[in-house]
């Protein structure tokens, strides 16, 4: 539940957990959790003895948190979670799953559907209490996208590949030039007049608008003022395009994020355009745009490890920047944009990596196990990117998992979290690295390798 008072004064949105539904076919578990939630949180607890009863109750009673057992008669936990996620009014409900015994396929399905956290069975009061604290804390974090960071003078605007770019220019030739030069990089929308540009901008909400100087109906500066006043989007980038002699005057208006000299030579214009901003977003900026990404990454890994191992997994080390891992077990590459990759490394001591895989998957083929784990974590992070609206902010066409594989080069620009299994020596770290997409790897003989071949 968002706290409107906190929102009004700019303080973080606080989510209070006052109503909890506990869905488990075991009356003893329901009793224990109800008592714990009531006494520790002062929460109102509603019980449901299976998924069907929970779904019926959810029609009239939407709690702040649903605690859901997976193995139940009639409608099991996975079916219930699926129904919850497919119901618009419930799709964002925080759900904690209770896990006893479940296979990798169920874990994958549950994580894919989206869960906030898990509690391992049999319950331990201390463990549950500690976990509850963390869950409640994580629910207190407002995971909405933050606005565009304030840029200082001289900072160039960032326009990511795949962004929606409105080209407002009376010249059909220039619009054609933009279409052919940048059509594969951005989603180009066109307008020939000021009125059309305003209309399209209000409807399509582009990431950036390139304004030619001689627009009919609304002059470019007038349109720029209007677009700023109407707050088409908080992170809108306005780019003026004009003749060289006009640009100084245009800059002086202070209405634009950037000014580019008009040119019909693709190499020249592309160079000018690229000089506006970096082709990739630094890690810090990506995390700034998606404040919950790291938390999602951490929670994804915790859920996967914990559910597979059927025990509580605790982060041991929070942030490691820069971080030199002892060994990268697997690297998951996610294509964020055409020019930007987000890599998630699973890091472990070489001795414990195999033990982890064996423990998690019960198979000696560690590499196979880690690849499976990689896909699950990648899926969760992808889900976080999409659900948190990073796509919308960055104007991304899609975020897709490119590959997952074995050890690769190290990079200092990363955030990491170290996990440990209680009572065991095994440790695993995950870290997020954001880097420009590499060119296709080339082997010693000069032949191009498929991406991932070198991983």
């Amino acid at each position: 539940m968002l706290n409107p008072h906190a929102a009004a004064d700019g303080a973080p949105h606080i989510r209070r957990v006052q109503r909890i539904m506990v869905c488990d076919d075991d009356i003893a578990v329901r009793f224990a959790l109800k008592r714990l939630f009531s006494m520790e949180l002062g929460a109102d607890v509603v019980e449901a003895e299976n998924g069907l009863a929970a779904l019926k109750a959810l029609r009239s009673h939407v709690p702040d948190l649903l605690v859901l057992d997976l193995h139940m008669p009639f409608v099991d936990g996975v079916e219930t979670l699926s129904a919850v996620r497919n119901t618009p009014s419930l799709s964002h409900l925080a759900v904690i799953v209770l896990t006893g015994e479940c296979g990798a396929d169920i874990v994958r399905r549950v994580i894919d559907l989206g869960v906030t956290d898990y509690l391992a069975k049999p319950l331990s009061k201390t463990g549950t209490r500690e976990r509850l604290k963390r869950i409640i804390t994580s629910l207190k974090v407002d995971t909405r996208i933050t606005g565009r960071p304030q840029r200082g003078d001289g900072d160039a605007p960032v326009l990511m590949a795949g962004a929606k770019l409105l080209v407002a220019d009376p010249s059909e030739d220039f619009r054609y030039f933009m279409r052919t030069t940048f059509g594969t990089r951005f989603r180009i929308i066109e307008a020939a007049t000021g009125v059309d540009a305003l209309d399209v901008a209000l409807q399509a909400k582009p990431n950036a608008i390139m304004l030619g100087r001689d627009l009919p109906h609304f002059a470019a500066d007038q349109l720029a003022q209007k677009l700023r006043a109407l707050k088409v989007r908080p992170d809108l980038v306005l780019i003026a395009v004009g003749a060289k002699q006009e640009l100084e005057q245009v800059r002086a208006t202070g209405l634009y994020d950037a000014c580019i000299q008009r040119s019909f030579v693709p190499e020249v214009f592309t160079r000018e355009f690229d000089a506006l901003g970096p082709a990739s977003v630094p890690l810090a900026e990506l995390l700034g745009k998606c404040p919950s990404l790291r938390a999602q990454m951490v929670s994804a890994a915790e859920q996967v490890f914990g559910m597979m191992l059927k025990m509580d997994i605790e982060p041991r080390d929070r942030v490691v920047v820069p971080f030199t891992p002892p060994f990268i077990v697997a690297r998951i590459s996610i294509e964020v944009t055409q020019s930007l990759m987000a890599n998630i490394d699973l890091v472990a001591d070489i001795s414990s990596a195999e033990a982890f895989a064996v423990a998690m998957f019960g198979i000696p083929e560690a590499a196979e196990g880690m690849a499976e784990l990689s896909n699950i974590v990648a899926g969760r992070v992808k889900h976080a990117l999409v659900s948190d609206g990073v796509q919308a902010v960055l104007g991304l066409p899609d975020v897709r998992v490119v590959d997952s594989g074995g050890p690769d080069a190290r990079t200092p620009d990363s955030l990491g979290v170290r996990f440990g299994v209680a009572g065991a020596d095994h440790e695993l770290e995950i870290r997020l690295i954001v880097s420009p997409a590499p060119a296709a790897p080339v082997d010693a003989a000069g032949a191009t390798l498929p991406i991932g071949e070198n991983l």
Partner: protein
Amino acid sequence: MTTNAHDAAADDFCANDLLAVTADDAGMREGLRDILVEEAPRLLTRMDAGLAAASAVLVADAAHAVKSLVATVGGRRAFALADALERRARQGDTSDARQGADALAASIGKLTADLTAFIERERRTC
């Protein structure tokens, strides 16, 4: 918890397991004991019905429910016995299920008695 010879020979009642679930909450312990007293016979009757109908699915489901219940109150041996019953029934094997169900009922009886005695001792100490 896993099923092995050690678990099968485990104590009917493990106070540490119960304390892990309930910690400092004596009221929770009493509540769980009451639930065990009420629920266990119902679940054992379900298992009997499954055995009478020669339904491995019913036996497995009943064993699963028993497992969950006794795990919460420190019933290590009952957990191991129910787990073994469930695993075999899930594979369609109910050949020794009658014997297993009887052993399970006996272990739950002992668990109930030990748990009650533990609670009484605790009450007297306080």
